[in-house]
């Protein structure tokens, strides 16, 4: 069952047939999914934005301005971050949104970010943190429990904030927590980096897709689920043109990283939602080798998660599905003997402690 935002992202011209009420719904859905600037970009690309009334197009234009500003700020912040890493002779490896935007990939067009994610070798994480703290970055306030959680069980350190600019930096030493199944050897990523600008690296095209899928299917909350699938769609349409061996190596790379289950889900749902062109049989090929025997159950859950967080898009049992996925993500992240006390503690903090939970604050994001 398709929804408005999905239809218009794929076929921008259809926007001209919408009435005002539908246009309002479209913009609401796009904002909720953090895809307003991406939508604006799609409409601009097909030159249909100029045919909309200015009462509507001003919102699209505004989203593009926000995206453009983020891009400028990103370029500046990256320069500063690079200087810090240079000082300890470590390479700058960008992940996710920052990588897409700085590498000027199509997936970065209209992409909005809330923070900058970087990857550093696990063995240097302490040095890296010290170097940033020496150069004007500091850990925001988090309570002791969350601090311990980050240090012991997470694949990143508590987010750093630049004192002068307010930029948030997430420093990762892996793409999944050490307690997760599978346990990923993050050194594998460093063997295949791509230098997109002098001294600035991203994961390889294949690893970028695999990381995006992994992030998505291990994530417990789906505010950005649809946006992440849109990212995958954009990458899967773009990367084969950059690397003729892209498809051939994708599945085996995922197997090497033990992330084929995530890739399988990623490919199949991206195709399902956005009609992404995939080579014949690749989904089955990934799927056969995966342990995913629960496809109908997963379809039930994810078809609900990958809709904008908006009442008009809600299918029956959405809350149940999101609840199950939340628990699933934690089960993937840590064994039960760690998980149960953790979830109990989170619930307690959410109910009774002011700093236990806060929406949309990158410094207090759900862990």
């Amino acid at each position: 069952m398709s929804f408005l935002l999905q239809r218009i992202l794929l076929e921008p011209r259809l926007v001209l047939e919408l009435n005002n009420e539908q246009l309002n719904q479209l913009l609401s859905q796009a904002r909720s999914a953090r895809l307003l600037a991406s939508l604006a970009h799609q409409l601009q690309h097909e030159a249909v934005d100029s045919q909309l009334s200015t009462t509507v197009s001003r919102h699209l234009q505004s989203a593009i301005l926000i995206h453009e500003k983020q891009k400028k700020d990103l370029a500046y912040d990256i320069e500063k971050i690079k200087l810090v890493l240079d000082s300890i002779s470590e390479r700058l490896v960008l992940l996710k949104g920052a990588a897409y935007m700085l590498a000027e990939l199509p997936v970065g067009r209209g992409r909005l970010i809330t923070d900058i994610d970087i990857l550093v070798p696990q063995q240097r994480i302490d040095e890296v943190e010290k170097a940033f703290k020496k150069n004007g970055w500091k850990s925001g306030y988090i309570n002791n429990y969350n601090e311990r959680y980050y240090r012991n069980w997470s694949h990143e350190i508590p987010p750093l904030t630049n004192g002068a600019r307010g930029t948030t930096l997430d420093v990762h030493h892996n793409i999944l927590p050490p307690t997760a199944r599978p346990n990923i050897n993050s050194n594998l990523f460093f063997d295949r980096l791509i230098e997109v600008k002098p001294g600035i690296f991203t994961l390889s095209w294949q690893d970028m897709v695999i990381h995006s899928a992994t992030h998505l299917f291990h994530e417990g909350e789906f505010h950005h689920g649809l946006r992440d699938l849109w990212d995958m769609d954009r990458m899967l349409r773009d990367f084969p043109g950059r690397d003729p061996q892209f498809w051939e190596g994708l599945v085996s790379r995922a197997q090497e990283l033990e992330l084929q289950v995530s890739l399988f889900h990623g490919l199949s749902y991206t195709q399902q939602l956005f009609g992404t062109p995939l080579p014949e049989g690749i989904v089955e090929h990934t799927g056969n080798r995966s342990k995913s025997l629960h496809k109908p159950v997963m379809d039930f859950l994810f078809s609900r998660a990958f809709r904008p967080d908006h009442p008009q898009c809600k299918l029956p049992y959405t809350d149940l599905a999101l609840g199950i996925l939340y628990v699933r993500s934690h089960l993937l992240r840590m064994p039960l003997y760690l998980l149960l006390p953790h979830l109990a503690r989170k619930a307690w903090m959410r109910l009774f402690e002011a700093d236990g939970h806060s929406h949309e604050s990158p410094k207090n994001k759900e862990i």
Partner: protein
Amino acid sequence: MRLLRHLATDDFKQRLASGELPIRVGPYIYNVQSNLPTVAAGIATLYADFRIAEPGDFVDYNVAIVHSGLLQRMQSKAKFLFDKRSPFNAIPAEQAYAFLEWGMNWCVSVHANEYLKLHAAAVSRGDRAIIMPGIPGAGKSTLCAALGLSGWRILSDEHAMIRPYTTQIIPLCRPVSLKNESIAVIKSFSSDAIFGPVSKETHKGVVAHMKADLQADCHDTQHLQASEMVFPRYARDEPQRLSPRRRTDSFILAAYHSFNYSLLCEAGFEAMKALIENVDCFDLVYHDLDWAVSAVNELPDRPSGL
């Protein structure tokens, strides 16, 4: 053209509860929803003369302030929703009205960028339109309310929206937010002031909103030409003065008090330059509101030449 006060009470309440109350505010339409009686009372009082949009019109901002769920009811909390999602934490239900107004400000602060938005009050009378930027506590809302009660048209007490590269102000008239002592100051300034619900113990103390559309043309959407920029500052122990201010300083201060000067990048600079070059700038230091109003009334006609 239908005004909110033309709706029958039951119709109004039903529309507000079900989220079918599209209110025209300057160039925008807010669709407002609430199931809280205090919010209904506030809107009925403060938005009585606002225009209701037609069913087929494009809604810019869907806002709501509601109890949602049993837990929130038990804790007597409410949530502000934008596009049906909550960007903020729940707040005490008795502060709901103030949060609705803040939320409505937030919609424009965060989502509108077709104008250069200054954090400023703006008023007009005759062919004069004055922008009054100020940090919180500078007394811009108090002065704005007093001017509104003295025959000036209130264009906004929060966002002075300037069409880039011009001096055109786009009116965005909504209730004036008054805090703490200024509520009593305005009540004693004029018995004509009409207030909405009082929200106590907010992060800004006691807050009450004053009906802002006191002139017949308050809801005209036609732009006005800014003629002056006045920087008000309430100071109990300083001599009162209205004095010309250098354009260069004014530029920096107005840019600092802008919501999107930096977001607009070069366009922001050019827009601010076009504005500042064509308005006269003044400092207004005051502690007596009557004096401040007459000082604004008597602003010199001649360009100050700075």
